[in-house]
Structures are given as structure tokens and as C-alpha cells.
């Protein structure tokens, strides 16, 4: 989900920790720690983990642009993974040609024919508008290994850098996984518990530990509602588990509903926990407040979302990969 959804969910979780709202009303900023830990898992992935993974670089040469060479390089790494029985990670790079000029290319894994398809596209600017349509070519290269590819879309690379993949050998072929460094160790309840413990010791307060643990856990739970899921109990579990498949993490309505729900919960908790310190009764009647502010809007939005998705019969694996692509886009804008 989007950063703001996670950040607010972290703060909302913090407002449930006894004493946190009361101390916030007295000037304590401990509650903000919830937001920090709410956004921490993606911060760890996109600001740190992605730079420290070991991968093979496939960096097309602008002076000798040949789709055959590019497709062969990808195919060779897939075959190497199959032959060695070990996962291989690959980073594809973009093709900058000068100020505001990039050569666009497309990559597709054809799992029916076990082929890698690379198409050299036009030269484009930052707005992805074509500047020069000449020089477009396509090449196909067969792999020896069987490809297990679940995403049906093409990967287009121009001014953003290219995608990274893990080629993981499995019994039924070499599985293609997008962004292997994302939603792994950083999105686990075990790390949340460990960081909660450290925060509790550092701040010398059980509240701080709980705020950290709940903030980070809120992020993991939100992500788990989608298709991709996370490696929930790393290092005990080794792979990302499937999500609950209730929503696509990049869709507008689920993100908006997550933001709204967090705001409604925060406001309710601020009211009920701050009221005694202000010598007043809480303003919001829980039944009326939650019915009008949360349940009714949520029902409407969920109804609209279900209506929009009524023809959305994509395979689970395809949706998983689409979700992770959406997460990558989130951090690039």
C-alpha cells in the first residue's frame, strides 16, 4: 500500500497503547514513533536493501544496441539458475542517450514457448513521448530451462531504471520473481518484535516498545491484505507467503479507505483519551461515530470497489506480480 496509508496506520496503532495519547496531550512526541515504524519496512527495502543485494547486471550498450544480445543475456542467467540449482538475481538497466533522451525497451517472458522476448522501442523523453521512432527491433531467444512466469504484462524500461528479478529453480521450472529484495526480512513480525524490544530498551519504556512493534505490525498486516504477502516470520520462514487477496495494493479505493480508517481511529482515540485531561466528557458516541464515520463510508467504498473488480478475474500469481510492480511505481514518483 502507499506510504501515507502505512504511516497513518502506525500512528493509529500507537493511539491504542495505554498512556500514549494522554502523554501526547502533555507534549510527548512518542506517538510519532508509530508513524516512523509504520513506514520503516518500506524504508528498509527501498533505501537500504535494494543497494546491497548481489546481482548480475545486464546493462545494454547504447553504442551496440542489439535485442538479441540482451535476450541472450537474460536467457543465459535463467539457464544458469536451472543448471546450478541456485537462485540467480539479475538487474536490468535503462539506456540513457543524453539529456532528456532514453532508448525504450520491452522485456517479456514467454512461458508457453520458453522464450525471452526483447523489443527495442523508440527514443523517448522524460514524459515518455517518442522523439525518434527509428531503430526498433525485436528478438526472441529460447531458454533450455522451462520458464515459470506468472505476470502477463511486458516490462517497459525507459527513464526509470529497469526491473530486478530472481530466477529461482523449482521442480516445475525456473520461477521468475520480481523485486526479490522487497517484502522479505524487513516485513516480518519477528523483526517487528526485535525492533520493539530495542525501542523499549532505548527509550526505557514499555510503551515505546509497544508503539514500535504495533506500528510496524500494522504495516505488515496492511500489506498482507493484498495478493503478494510478506515473509512473515523471517528467518524461520524463507519465502514470502501469499496475501489474503482482498485488494490490490496499488488501487485507489483500498488506499483511500486505509487512510480514512486510520484518521477516524486516531480522532476517536484522541477524543476519548484526551477528554479527562481537559476536564470534559468525550465528544463522540462510539455507536454513532463509527456508524456514520466508518461503517457507512466503508460499506459504500467496498461496494464500489467490488463492483469495479467484478470482471477482474486475473490469476492469483499474476495479481501478485502486478502488486509488486505497483509498489515499485509508488517509490518512483
Amino acid at each position, binding site marked *: 500500500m*502507499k*506510504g*501515507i496509508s502505512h*504511516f497513518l496506520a502506525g*500512528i493509529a496503532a500507537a493511539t491504542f497503547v495505554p498512556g500514549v495519547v494522554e502523554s*501526547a*496531550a*502533555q*507534549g*510527548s*512526541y512518542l*506517538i*510519532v514513533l508509530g*508513524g*516512523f515504524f509504520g*513506514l520503516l519496512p518500506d*524504508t528498509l527495502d*527501498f*533505501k*537500504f536493501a535494494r*543497494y*546491497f*543485494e*548481489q546481482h548480475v*547486471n545486464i*546493462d545494454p550498450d547504447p553504442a551496440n544496441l542489439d535485442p538479441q544480445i540482451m535476450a541472450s543475456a537474460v536467457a543465459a542467467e535463467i539457464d544458469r539458475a536451472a543448471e546450478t540449482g541456485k537462485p540467480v538475481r539479475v*538487474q536490468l*538497466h*535503462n539506456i540513457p542517450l543524453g*539529456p*532528456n533522451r532514453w532508448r525504450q525497451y520491452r522485456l517479456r517472458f514467454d512461458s508457453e514457448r520458453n522464450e525471452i522476448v526483447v523489443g527495442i522501442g523508440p527514443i523517448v*523523453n*522524460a*514524459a515518455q*513521448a517518442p522523439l525518434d521512432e527509428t531503430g526498433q527491433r525485436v528478438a526472441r531467444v529460447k531458454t533450455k530451462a522451462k520458464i515459470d512466469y506468472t505476470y502477463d504484462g511486458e516490462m517497459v524500461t525507459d*527513464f526509470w*531504471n529497469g526491473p530486478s528479478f530472481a530466477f529461482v529453480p523449482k521442480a516445475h521450472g525456473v520461477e521468475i520473481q520480481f523485486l526479490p529484495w522487497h517484502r522479505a526480512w524487513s516485513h516480518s513480525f519477528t523483526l517487528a518484535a526485535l525492533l520493539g524490544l530495542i525501542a523499549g530498551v532505548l527509550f526505557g519504556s514499555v510503551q515505546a516498545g509497544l508503539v514500535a512493534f504495533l506500528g510496524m505490525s500494522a504495516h505488515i498486516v496492511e500489506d498482507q491484505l493484498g495478493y503478494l504477502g510478506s515473509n512473515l516470520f523471517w528467518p524461520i520462514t524463507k519465502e514470502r507467503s501469499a496475501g489474503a487477496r482482498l485488494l490490490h495494493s*496499488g*488501487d*485507489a*479505493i483500498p*488506499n*483511500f479507505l486505509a*487512510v480514512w480508517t486510520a*484518521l477516524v481511529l486516531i480522532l476517536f482515540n*484522541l*477524543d476519548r483519551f*484526551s477528554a479527562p*485531561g*481537559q476536564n*470534559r466528557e468525550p*465528544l463522540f458516541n462510539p455507536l454513532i461515530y463509527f456508524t456514520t464515520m466508518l461503517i457507512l463510508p466503508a460499506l459504500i467504498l467496498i461496494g*464500489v470497489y467490488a463492483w*469495479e473488480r467484478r470482471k477482474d478475474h486475473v490469476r492469483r500469481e499474476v495479481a501478485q506480480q502486478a502488486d509488486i510492480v*505497483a509498489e515499485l*511505481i*509508488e*517509490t*518512483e*514518483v
Partner: protein
Amino acid sequence: MELLSYLFIAVLGALIASLLALIPALHVYNVITLAFLFAGGLQAWLQPDQFAMLLLGMVTGYAVLSVIPSIYLAAPDETSAFIVLPGQKWLLERRGYEAAILTGVGSLCGVIVLVLLSPILTEVARALRLVLAPHFGWILAAISLFMLMSEWPKGGDRGPTNWARFRAARSQLSAGLLTFFLSGLLGIILMYRNFLPVDTAFASLLPAFIGLFAIPMVLTNLVMGTRVPPQHISASIDLSPSLLLRGTFAGSLGGLFAAFFPVVTGGIGSFLAGHATAQRDERTFIISQGVSKLVYYAGGFLLFFLPGLHLARGGMASMISTIYTPGTPQMYYVAVAALAVSGAVSFFLLIPYSRFAVRFLARLDYRTVNIGTLIIILIVLLLTTGLPGLAIAIPATAIGLIPSFFGSRRMNCLGVLLVPITLNMAGVGPEIARWLGLG
């Protein structure tokens, strides 16, 4: 009859703003700062109520029509390709006209939202103020933290080692932090030291804002030799009710948040609205920006008219609160009507103005436009704050240029407001000021 005169004056304000909004980098608050310098003279012509309606019309008109310079004249260069907003991206795609009209549609939706909310706004604002007042400090700190944490690294994709890639990705993030820290330091200095003459002291942050935001944009355009392609004037816009509703919801949330919270500006409201919308569809984002801007400027000023509350939020309300307080509850509904009428008039002006901007850009050299803009900015700065204002604007410009050099977010310049106010609310502001030799 009296109501009609108020509405007429508000429309007049919108018409004045519509001319001023076309002048690049000239903020309506700059003009109103000038107006306040001559407020004594104006009061001979207008009653305080009428003066308030004139300002309301001006703010509303500005909120709708300032989209023209912000889209057509904020053209990004290739160094900022990774950080451009959809409006500017559309300009490079020759779709600036469409972006301007979509933003205008968003502004119109913002007007409708404010009108629909007006019967319950007093009670909502009263309840929110009661609940949130003890929590303003940490909320501002949370906004700053989110701004800094949600800036993701661009670059660092190539390098001989992982550490080299990691370090390369840090440059833009570090520049963002440096911008926030330096603008915050500038804000602390300006809060504890007044460099301006007494009669313009109320505009102490104006030169800082001009330096942080307006001048760097123009200088970057001049240095990079930015060129804008000819624009296409489309006959219709592609927009579904679902996208319109999403943009309106998100923009309203961001705008109302910014309007209600002290120190939170329209820029932060738009930033939050942008994050709350799905950025895969740029139309939703562009609409949300129009809604947020209108709700922040006009809605923030409307809060000043709330019966029994008179919340002075935003620069406009703060300035007018020094000379005027709405006398009767009826003035609130007069203000709502004035907002609706001036908003509608401004929207209908947007279409011919936007066509004019497209033709103007096609005929005039973009470099000449930017030089003219810079001259106007400097004249306004000198007229409102004199040489001391210029002295503040120079270091502010240096800070404001950091995002242009490193491709980081310009939003970090809002540290000028967020840092000193958050520190003050945490109770450590005076101590830090003393430590800096300012106390």
C-alpha cells in the same frame, strides 16, 4: 441589496486576482501585503465588511487561476525529470491546456465541497479544535517526519560496488535533509529576529518564501534554457465521475487539513492529497491538486467568518484579523455565497485565460518570460519589504536552489515554517534560539 453589493465586490476581487494570477510568481498574498500597506486609503472607499469580501474574492480567484503560471511557467528541465509533477509532465507532452482545465474542474469541485459543508462547518471546526488543540505539536512533527521519510532515492542504480551505489543514492536524500535543516534554521532566525521595518513586520516570512520557492524556479528555467513545446488545445477532457470523486475526496481531505491546522500550508495539503490519491492515474492527482488549493485558500479564509470561532488560518486571515472581525453570524453565509459566486466566475475565466496562455507561450521566447518574471518578483519584494527583504531572500534563494541541483523535493523548504513552530510547540524553541545566540 446589501447582499448583492457584497457579491459584486467579491466578483470584483476575483477579477482583480484573475489579472494578478497571470503574472508569474506573483502570489496573491504579495499583492494583499501591498494593499495592507495602503489599507488606510482603501478604507475611505470600502467598509471593513466590503474589504473582507474583496479579499475573499481575490483569494478565491487566485486559488482557481494561479494554475496558469504554475503549469505553463513551471516547466521542468531534464535534470528534474524524476521529480516532476503530473501537471508539468503534461506540459512537456503538449497537454498543458488539459492539465489547467482539469485543475480548474478540481477547484470548482472544491467550491462545491465548501458550500455543501458550510452548514456543518462551525460544529465540525469547534469539535476538531477541542479535540486536536492539545495535539498540534506532535501532528506537525509527524508531518515533517513523513515528508522526510517518504522521499525515496532516485539514482544509485549503477556503480562499481554496492557501497558506491548506496552512496550515490544518498546524495539526493541528503540534499533533502540539508534543505529541510537549513530552511528550518532560516525560519528560527526569522522568528526570533525581525529584520524588516516595523510597518512591514507582519510580512516577515514573505521574502523567505519568495527566495525559497519563486526565485529558484525562475533561475533554474533561465540557466537550463528550458523550452516548452507548442501546446494542444483539446476540445474536451477525458474524465469519469469515479476519477472526479476520488480526486475531490483526496483533495478535500488535504485542503481541509491544511486550512484547519496552523502552520500547515496549501503545499503540504496538496502533498498529502497527492499521496492519498492513486498516482497511477494522473488525472486524479491533478484534480486533487485543484481541490486542495481551493479548499486551503478559500476554505481557510472562510474559517475566519465562522460564527463564534473566527479562526485566523492562513496569511490572509491573519492579516485581516488585525483590522476586522465579522460582526454578525449572517456574514458567514454571505461569505459562503461570495465564495461560490467568485469561484464560479473564476472557473469560467480559466478557459479563455488558458487559451491566451497557450498562444502567449507560442509567440514569446520562454527566456524573455522568465527574465520578466524575475524582474517582477524583485520589484514586488523591494516594494513590500525593501532592502532588508532582499537581504533575507538571497540566502533563502541559495537554500531553494539545493533541490534544483540535487533533484530532491522542493517541499523540504517548508522546514522554514515547520521546524520553528514544531520546536516552539515542543517547548524547546526559545532554548535553541538562545543556544544560537538569538534569544
